[in-house]
């Protein structure tokens, strides 16, 4: 794997407009039963402007940044050997329907361990005002030859 990736500046992704039905679809897929994930009236009663995305919804937006990493021609990452090692979301505020999110990738560490490579990246997501919403942190494990 190319160690220079940690110093690379990746372009921000195109803005992702968070749709109400997309949140509902995702909420059903992760067995989310909370009314604020489905019902605008419940979300507004709880103080939000619209329905609230489940805590892991940010992965949908993060995905575009991971594609930037995996498809970088000089990254040296074989997609078929990639396994998800760990995942974290750190929120300033929850994502709600109507948010327009822009994500910027940075590669924070690349390590080798027993023939495998581990690449940790952060996708920092801001709203249309440029204010921080959530940072998604992933470690991908690229398996070496067996």
């Amino acid at each position, binding site marked *: 794997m190319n160690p220079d990736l940690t110093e690379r500046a990746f372009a921000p992704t195109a803005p992702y407009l968070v749709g109400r039905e997309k949140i509902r679809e995702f909420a059903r897929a992760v067995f989310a039963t909370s009314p*604020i994930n489905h019902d605008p009236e419940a979300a507004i009663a709880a103080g939000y402007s619209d329905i609230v*995305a489940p805590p892991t919804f940010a992965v949908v937006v993060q995905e575009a940044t991971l594609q930037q990493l995996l498809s970088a021609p000089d990254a040296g990452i074989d997609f078929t050997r990639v396994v998800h090692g760990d995942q974290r979301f750190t929120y300033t505020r929850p994502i709600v329907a109507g948010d327009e999110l822009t994500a910027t990738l940075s590669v924070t560490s690349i390590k080798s361990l027993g023939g495998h490579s581990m690449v940790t990246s952060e996708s920092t997501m801001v709203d249309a005002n440029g204010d921080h919403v959530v940072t998604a942190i992933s470690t991908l494990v690229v398996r070496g030859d067996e």
Partner: protein
Amino acid sequence: MIAEIGEVVAEKTYELTRDSLVRYAGASGDFNAIHYRDDVAASVGLPGVLAHGMLTMGFAVQPVVEWIGDSGRILDYQVRFTRPIVVDPVDGATVTVVAKVGALDDAEVRVDLTVTYNGSTVLGKAQARVSLAATV
């Protein structure tokens, strides 16, 4: 919401089927074929079709959300993927989540999740930091 360290605040069992995986693939945009095609899973040496790790992470926090009643109070959520969940085409997979208070102060509670499938844990260091007050 009164809790003390070590207290189990939520416990829930999820029945995953192949339908669950197809639904998550569509909702998340993760169409890796190892999550719905037996032949592809076998060709890369897997014991069967696997649940998306992010699906497991996604539902494992739901008992915590149901306990606090507001998904917006989840400040931070992390997991390590330590073992795959094989979803049988007929029998599916049964996954159990136990949520226990790991740490507590005036403002936040850290909930530690134990997620079990087939007698083994599938996530490591699965922790959610939850605000005790509304965030909006």
